[in-house]
């Protein structure tokens, strides 16, 4: 199994003055963060505080109303395709095709990304025994492992994980923690949102609710 490496270059993922609106409501405003190679950023906050919204901004799936997100000082909007090539995203939905087998689901992804290693992804989340099983027979936890196997299969410097541990059993959480540690060791960056404890090494903690509510009344009032 080949190890992917991003060593050598130090990367920096940062944002300044981010404001996000959904449905006319300010979710958070003036949010800043900065994270460098080898570090993890942990997003915490109650339900609805904007953890998922922030992760979608970080992917480029949504645009902030104000502020900018940058990779090594270069705004991600300038070249969305280049940004997409350097990130792996796991959202709330597992994006698993029920009619394909586990291995086929993963192979499709690797094909589309044009880079990666199916066997590596399967091994990382103990999916090898399930490789030939149609994905429609998987349990919720197994489907989530398959979604996570994608990030282990294809190389990308930036991992954006939205509540990845929700349906996982203890062994799978441990496998995820090990995968994250490996990724950080190789100079990757991880951004993870979670309401439960995930064993991250020395994470930078970002409390999203620190950036909510204050301006809410102001911005909501006149509108």
């Amino acid at each position, binding site marked *: 199994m080949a190890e992917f490496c991003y060593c050598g270059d130090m990367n920096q993922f940062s944002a300044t003055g981010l404001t996000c609106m959904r449905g006319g409501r300010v979710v958070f405003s003036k949010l800043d963060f900065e994270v460098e190679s080898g570090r993890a950023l942990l997003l915490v906050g109650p339900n609805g505080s904007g953890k998922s919204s922030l992760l979608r901004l970080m*992917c*480029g*799936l*949504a*645009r902030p109303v104000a502020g900018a997100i940058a990779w090594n000082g270069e705004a991600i909007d300038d070249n969305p*395709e*280049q940004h*997409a*090539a350097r*990130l792996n*995203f796991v*959202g*709330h*939905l*597992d*994006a*698993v*095709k029920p*009619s*394909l087998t586990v291995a*086929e689901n993963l192979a*499709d*992804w690797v*094909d*589309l*990304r*044009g880079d990666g290693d199916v066997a590596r992804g399967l091994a990382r989340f103990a999916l090898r025994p399930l490789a030939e099983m149609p994905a429609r027979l998987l349990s919720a936890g197994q489907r989530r492992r398959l979604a996570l196997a*994608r990030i282990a299969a294809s190389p990308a410097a930036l991992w954006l994980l939205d509540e990845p541990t929700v349906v996982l059993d203890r062994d799978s959480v441990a496998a995820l923690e090990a995968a994250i540690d490996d990724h950080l060791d190789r100079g990757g960056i991880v951004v993870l949102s979670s309401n439960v404890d995930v064993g991250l090494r020395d994470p930078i903690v970002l409390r999203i609710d620190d950036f909510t509510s204050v301006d809410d009344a102001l911005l909501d009032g006149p509108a």
Partner: protein
Amino acid sequence: MVRRELRLAFRQPGDAAAVLIFFVLATVLFPFGIGPEANILARIAPGVVLVAALLAAMLSLERMFAADFEDGSLELLALLPIPLEAIMLAKALAHWLTTGLPLLVAAPLMGVLLNLPDAGYAPLIAAMALATPTVSLIGAVGASLVLGARRGGVLICLLVLPLLIPVLIFSAGAVDAAMAGFGAKQHLLLLGGLLLGALVLCPWASGAALRQAME
């Protein structure tokens, strides 16, 4: 990308088969409704075949992006290092291969059933070869616009069918002109023009709609 779409389609052959069966059934209903008089059937054959094919194609449009939207695959596709417009083109091509092409193959058989005159077959096939990809492209725009809406299937028809009226007019016109002894060339050239226009505008429109749906 096209390979992925085709593989998914072949795993669920029911969807493509339903379109084809609807096309055949809808066409077969006309002789029953209108009566077996050969002259009348010959006169209406081009229009009936084309309208039935158009309606059959509508059936398949809703699922074009909906499945990927619901299970989250669309987000992952949008995060591939290729433009969303290229993904949409690949999807439209796969849709044409699984829907338009079977309809194209079945259309001459339906022509036989409706007593289509000999002169009509070549222009019917040519017109459908140009019209079906246009339907896939414009349909893809409709399918991406209704993502997240309830009763998306009905909405697609309302959005897309009016836009496809020119395609229908020139397709039927090509066959009629050939049957009347005039050349079908002008109609076919216009159909080709519509296809090229759709090829340029639809990916852009669909890409914008998909981005909107995912925000």
